[in-house]
């Protein structure tokens, strides 16, 4: 069996800071002590695999997958697509991508969400798919609305879609959010601002992708995702005594 090598250590400065007083909930929920760093082991290098058997034909179509009365979800129809790669630009094929989002009015189908905007009876707000052999994925959905949330006095989340990605190793596990090109709320959002590296935040902003838009049907946005890579060298197995 080929040893794919250990996971490349996470560059923590390319991620959000765990503790950020502007995002108040992070204050009591961020570890104070440094993380314990160690080379990955099979426990982190292996991970769950999900087959096509678990994916239904409408799972990546949020316009139709909760169509209670048969009509499509209300809102601006969009295709969200992209490629999952690793840090060495290798495609990550056959891996599970899950998304969740608010409806067009900015309301989630969740008991805790009591925002004034109405629920759409035909919108559930979740979808999932497996990447193809080139690591590509697609979702058809509606553009989520911005919504207010309790944090500072007058706080609004920019339009966003939550993404959960597995990769092939448990240590690659990633949850992130996709924002939309041109949204003025991104620069006012304390959750986006937990990422201190501007280019890393910019990479969460999906550009409008007109070539992939379908005339008279949907607009398109492109969102590529990069997961941790695994180092492959001829020197992974140490000789006895070294």
């Amino acid at each position, binding site marked *: 069996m080929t040893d794919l090598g250990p996971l490349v250590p996470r560059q923590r400065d390319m991620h959000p800071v765990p503790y950020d007083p502007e995002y108040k909930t992070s204050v009591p929920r961020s570890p104070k002590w440094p993380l314990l760093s160690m080379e990955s082991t099979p426990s982190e290098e292996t991970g769950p695999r999900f087959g096509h058997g678990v994916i239904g034909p409408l799972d990546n179509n949020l316009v139709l997958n909760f169509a209670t009365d048969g009509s499509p979800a209300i809102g601006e129809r969009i295709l969200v697509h992209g490629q999952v790669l690793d840090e060495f630009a290798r495609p990550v094929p056959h891996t599970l991508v899950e998304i969740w989002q608010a409806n067009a009015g900015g309301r989630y189908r969740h008991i805790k969400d009591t925002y004034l905007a109405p629920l759409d009876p035909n919108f559930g707000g979740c979808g999932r798919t497996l990447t193809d052999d080139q690591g590509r994925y697609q979702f058809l959905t509606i553009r989520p609305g911005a919504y207010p949330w309790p944090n500072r006095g007058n706080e609004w989340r920019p339009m966003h879609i939550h993404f959960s990605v597995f990769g092939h190793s448990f240590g690659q596990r990633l949850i992130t959010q996709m924002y939309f090109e041109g949204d003025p709320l991104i620069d006012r959002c304390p959750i986006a601002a937990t990422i201190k590296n501007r280019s890393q935040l910019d990479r969460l902003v999906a550009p409008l992708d007109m070539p992939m838009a379908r005339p008279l049907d949907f607009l398109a946005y492109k969102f590529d995702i*990069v997961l941790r890579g695994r180092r492959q060298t001829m020197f992974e197995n140490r000789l006895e005594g070294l």
Partner: protein
Amino acid sequence: MPQPLANLTETASQTGGPYVHIGCIPSFAGINGVYPQDLGLSPIQPGALGPQITITGQVIDGTGWALRDALIESWQPDSAGRFAGQPGADPAVSGFCRFAADKDSGEFSLTTIKPGPVPARSGQMQAPHISLWIAARGINVGLHTRIYFEDEDNSADPLLARIEQRNRVSTLIARKTGEGSYRFDIRLQGEGETVFLDI
């Protein structure tokens, strides 16, 4: 100028937010009919080899309050230390489970089989453990940790050996509370803060 490195940088994490359940365990969030069932309901199927165990606990914040909105994923090998997909692995062990803190009590529970030991890259054996990953509102980068077991020999485990402050080792060890039952609380911050991993 040296040659440029063509490597990419990992996409930045963001918090799962308060509605992470909608995406990961929609039935738990009351959204039925999109998928036949939530993914990762159990890491084992009937007939899984090895002693069955139940681990309960809470995810506790820096004020001592148990999170009601935490989502946890676990990953483990079978009772012989083989992960799903590896040659000879127990077909009744998927090894993956998703579970959530109860919305009223904050208590979580994982029923599985005791995992077998797995070697580290050095070839040194690691003590039996279950890998955990925790996502919630206010957690900006998902947290990795491990559950070890009080009734196993943890003395030679290479990860536990790396913990300089020996008084923190116990934060990774589940306490036995009965036959096949364990308690494992996760403290995000403050007194008794759990050791989280950069691995």
